[in-house]
């Protein structure tokens, strides 16, 4: 996998592809590029644009108190992050082989970044047609109400995943995550075609087999919906 570090983001391209590349913007730290490179062989041809978040706690779509003592509170920076992602997408598409048509372009994130991806879904972000929330922090107070009030585009494709043990977290607020994720899937199934919504439960807690969860997400429906 060729990694191109430019303008603060990292573009990861498969060295040899048999099919046209699908584009996925992955919100995460710089180490995510290495993790994704490790699962490259399991993925269909995909251009992965790793978009680093400067402040993890500002990825939240909503304000919320801190999770633990001593941590900063969650501040609503999801929109700012999405605008950065748009800028990176535009920058790299001008220079490198990226397909930025919404049918072939998605946004993905793990944990709080998964919620940022869902924020893009519920604000009908026109850049993306595919939204991946991996172990998304849907337990965040106010998210369910926000999702109900903001109807997504009916052509969207949404992947939701969660660890089976995540609802057994020691943090009482985070224990809501399974219920909230199932609610999110039910809500989307009322709006989107049935095969456009996928909820998958993986073994383990929040940090178990993260590369495997990325691989499962990025493989979803690609054989049926990949660029010809």
């Amino acid at each position: 996998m060729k990694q191109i570090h430019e303008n603060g983001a990292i573009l990861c391209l498969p060295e040899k592809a048999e099919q046209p590349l699908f584009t996925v913007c992955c919100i995460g730290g710089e180490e995510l590029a290495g993790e994704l490179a490790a699962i490259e062989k399991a993925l269909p041809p995909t251009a992965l644009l790793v978009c680093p978040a400067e402040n993890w706690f500002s990825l939240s779509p909503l304000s919320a108190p801190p999770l633990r003592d001593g941590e900063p509170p969650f501040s609503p920076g999801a929109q700012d992050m999405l605008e950065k992602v748009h800028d990176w997408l535009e920058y790299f598409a001008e220079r490198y082989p990226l397909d930025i048509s919404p049918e072939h372009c998605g946004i993905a994130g793990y944990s709080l970044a998964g919620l940022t991806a869902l924020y893009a879904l519920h604000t009908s972000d026109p850049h993306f047609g595919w939204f991946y929330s991996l172990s998304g922090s849907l337990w965040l107070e106010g998210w369910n109400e926000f999702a109900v009030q903001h109807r997504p585009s009916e052509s969207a494709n949404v992947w939701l995943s969660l660890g089976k043990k995540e609802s057994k977290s020691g943090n009482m607020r985070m224990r809501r995550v399974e219920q909230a994720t199932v609610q999110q899937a039910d809500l989307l199934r009322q709006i989107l075609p049935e095969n456009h919504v996928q909820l998958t439960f993986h073994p383990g807690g929040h940090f178990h087999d993260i590369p495997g969860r990325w691989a499962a997400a990025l493989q979803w429906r690609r054989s049926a919906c990949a660029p010809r």
Partner: protein
Amino acid sequence: MPNRFDQLAVADDHLLLSSCAELPVYPILRRPMGCLGEAVTLAALRMTIRDGIVSNDDLPCPAELLVNRISAPGERNLLPARWFVSLSKNSPPDDPAVASALAARIIREKSGCNPDQYLKRKGFLNGQYRPAFHPDGSMFAAGLGMTTAEAARFIAAMMRDGLLEPDELPVGYYGMAAVRLSDHAVAVAAGWFEGPQSLKDEIRSLALKTEPVLQPAETAGNIFHYNGQVPVFCGKSFLPRARRRFPSVREMAGGAGSLHGIGGEITRLSFQLDNGKAILCCIEEDGRSSLTFGYDGWITARCPSGMYAGKVLSMGEEHFCGLLMNLDGVSRTEIRLKTAPGGLLLESSPESKSDEDFSLLFAEAEGLE
């Protein structure tokens, strides 16, 4: 050492049944194949004997001995220096290449044409292959220029008429090997064969795995098709009409100037149109490059001289336009193909000022002369 298969084709005496190939060498692209000359000569020798044109008295030794010499296993080298003397003496040959050349000379003397021409007259070969004898008498070559698919169809036809057995063909290191699969079908492989002992089993096994070939519609005249929704290439291959100085892959993809011209010039170039993608195949000093254009997005390719990506920009009934990107130099070239008198004209326009525009006329591989 493992055998290396570049191409494999399965055919009966009428149709190409299946094929597979290592990119960028396609079974319907022409390439030199050692041992095909022997196949042509052997078949023509038996046919001229059967037709009463050549008799045992014309041969320097019994026909079977000559056949055995021609099909003796081993790597084929250039004709030894004494070959011309051997032919003039009409003495029993001790070298396979001399035996093949001697048989070809006898066929020409008796029938008035070279072995390939004789078979062509009889309707068993199509197209133009290299003559058995160069006009100045300095070289000999019989079968060069046939594709694996054509070779498979030819050998199957010879097999049907009892003029050739696939097992009779010699197996050298670099060349061709054939195996009878049934009464009518034969598998022909081209490559580099280090282990002739396991070769036949491997060919049979590979032949079972090949994809069936969809027989093209007889009426398919256009190079490019568009069914209103999906652009469809009709599965044709093209080769340059003339030898010329090619650019390097990097020059063609743009950005070579900024990289101090790394990469040798392309020595061989072909273009393949397929339903899923368009592939420009280049062989240069550093190795093979398959530059691939996706119909509906970018396709990346790692080549010896760097990493490239290609995408189809537009296509009509008579043109193709694609964008090729050099991901190391981050430069782009527009590649255009359009029908032109004599074939298909390829033009490239690198955006980098340090690289030159390039144009080349291609001819359809099946119709090459």
